[in-house]
């Protein structure tokens, strides 16, 4: 069941993803997760490498990557804003929050602003239902938000160079 992967690989920053990892059957998703956490998304080159390492076809790996909403197949913005659309947050004003942020940034959820600064996403539940509505910016969770308090968080990031 275990295949050892000894690889130092080609091309871009996707290099070395497979180095030193026990390529057990089923390692495709962990590999994708590694790439995603290093590059922020799954580049075509990285996908090719994973396919080679796992002995799968590129299309199979692409099929897997597109099934899971965690994986991005194009380059995301520098800041990732996730707005919780779990039941609690939805009922507690999450929808309004989302609409507000969407308007502020001028993008629909799932998109990235033109200056590649912000990506906006929704998430099913961040597990902070008692603090609804909740939003996560680059992994930091903010709860009990109103559109205006969320806006000030955004403004803070915006002021960065």
């Amino acid at each position, binding site marked *: 069941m275990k295949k050892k992967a000894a690889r130092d690989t080609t091309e871009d920053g996707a290099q070395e993803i497979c180095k030193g990892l026990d390529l057990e059957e089923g390692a495709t998703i962990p590999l994708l997760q590694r790439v995603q956490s290093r590059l922020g998304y799954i580049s075509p*080159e990285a*996908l090719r490498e994973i396919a*080679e390492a796992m002995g799968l*076809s*590129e*299309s199979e790996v*692409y099929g897997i990557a597109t*099934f899971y909403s965690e994986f991005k197949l194009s380059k995301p913005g520098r800041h990732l804003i996730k707005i919780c659309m779990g039941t609690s947050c939805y009922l507690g004003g999450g929808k309004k929050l989302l609409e507000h942020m969407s308007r502020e940034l001028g993008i629909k959820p799932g998109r990235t602003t033109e200056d590649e600064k912000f990506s906006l996403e929704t998430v099913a539940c961040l597990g902070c239902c008692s603090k609804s509505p909740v939003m996560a910016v680059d992994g930091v969770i903010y709860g009990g938000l109103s559109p205006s308090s969320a806006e000030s968080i955004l403004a803070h990031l915006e002021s960065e160079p």
Partner: protein
Amino acid sequence: MHLRIDDQEIDVPPGTTIKEAAKLAGIKIPGLCDHPELERYGGCRLCLVEVEGIRGYPSSCTMPVSEGMKVRTNTPALKSLRLNILEMLLSEHPCICLICERSGMCDEVREGMRKVPQTMGCRYCPKDGRCELQEAVTQIGLKKVELCRIGTEKEIIRSPFFDRDPNLCILCGRCVRACADRGVSAISFVFRGFDTVIGTAFEKPLEDVGCRFCGACVDVCPTGALVERANKWSGVAKRVVETICPYCSSNCQIGIEVKDDKILRTRPKGSKLCVRGRFGLEFVSNQRLTRPMILKGEGLVEAGWQEAMELVAERLGGYKGRRFAMLLSGVLTNEALRTAKKFSERVMNSRAVAEDTSSDFSLTEIIQGPLLAVGDLAETNPATELAIRHSKPVVISPFRTMLAKKASVWLRCRPGEEPQVLEAIAKASVQENTDALGDTVISAEEILKAAKLLGKASVVVGPDCNRAVRKAAENLVRVIGGKLCVVGRNCNSRGVAVLGLDQGYEETMQSLMSGEIAAAYIVGSNPARSDPELIESLSNLEFLVVQDLFLTETAKLADVILPAASFAEIEGTYTSSDGRMLQLMPALSAISKSDMQIISELCHKMKGRLPDDPASSRPEGTKTWTGKGQQSEDITSSGSFILVEGPCLFEFGSGTRTSRVRDLQYLNKDRYVDIHPRDAARHKISNGEPVSIQSRGRSIRGLARVSMSVPEGVMRICGRASRIASAEVRRDV
């Protein structure tokens, strides 16, 4: 197992699904995702049934039977579920005609047409009349689609040979499963839920994701989503002619669908076709020669049969004996080969030879036992490769071939080391030592493991292997007491071997190169294309007759060209590797005379004429024939790479026929050069970049394909015949 389905009692073997059992009982349960040759799926949900004691409605295509089961297939609840589920499918499908009450009567009144170039309604669907969705609608009895149409219009995806119209796709996943079954998985489900489509990585074209264009996906598609592009709109065939694929020695049976004396498409008949059998028969109606041609002055001019035959008979009469050579080919029928042999031996007092051979073996038998395989069978003989893949052979190959991926042990030697590895296995299986390995890159451990697996194994040697490999395999087989299976190159390789025509090919070539031969008669082969170094000798001949379908590179050197009929126009037989006679059936009316007919007419004409005086002069400047694939000594590379020209699925043999199939030609437009990632990095070559290779004074251009399928220090180009050479590589700028 005994069970009851509706009111019928039936006994079926365990493991049967309810749907299969029902079919045996004569009850047809609808269903669109299920396919007898594919893994079970259970996605469309049209085959739901009720089973006593089980909650809900299980899908009969996935549910195995159990003892005493009581199944109902047609209760009102089930009928309503099916109607509704089918209605859902159609709410995504441009389907006006399916439920139109005048369906089938609207040839003139073109209803349901839209102002977009897209299928809308069955009348405008290429699968009209052969569509399983149409069948399901009739069977389930859907009359009305109340649900609103949902989904967005998607663009048609065009590929070589076939088109995919995602708007007609019902996501049954048959194509995905068929592709996985072939070990290719060029396509996959991508995205999720309602957005799911069937596609490729980053929407790349199929040819860039490893598609081998076998057409298995098209064959299993129940709707018009996947259709062949050739004759897309020509409708249903008038008749189907069952015959044999004229390419490799796998001898797949094919059904040629014919309409108006034209091949509409070919379908597999109980075999798993590759691209050549499925889509590669277009050559029979492309650039064919219809009349004989004679060299007059500087050029070839058309002539009548009478004149051409007279000329051939007269001129050949002057070269009886050793100055004459007859070159045949494994693409010819037994009948043609036999007549040619007779002609050569009895009339010309000379020998006929063909560069092809095959040993006598039965594929179905050898796959029962242990197997060792050498050569890239997936490129040369795809159907044979598919058959032996499942028995997990030991594979000797420098390349990660389709077969190597499925190997139980993959002995990844360096190019040219194959004979040594075979020898080492032979030694290891008697003496348990691995001295014979020498300095190959294979470990002793691997050899011992392989040797252990290979008691009495059959050794399969692909047609791309050279003589040294064949000999080493022969020796191994003697030692382990197995069976030698030399796989033939062409559809009638075995016929060539049975008639003994495979004997003496090298000697004949030798005489040709040395100028001993002054006249030749070449039937169905194109040496000027496959071995350009022969061109000079061929043009030096005093008289050359070429008999072929096309004006080939060789034919252009001829004094007389005789046009022959193709496999699709004649009756005749091929011999399979296990000795069966396979019958060819004419599908089209003949464009010309058959090979057999021409040669036997010639026999009649020339009978009784006496052989001429054999004394004659040799031209100066003799060369020696080195033969193909035997330059392995060259590997002591002076260059920086070992260059291997590997066989290629899309270019069969000399490429004479495949170059006359438009989409195959398209697939061959770029010559790919496989190169290991580490080498690529060292030479700063990235995937898809053009490179040029200097090898033995030749310069070969190609596109780099960075891949671990080749070992480090080796480059492989897909091309004619199999050769090994050393090479320098550089980037093209």
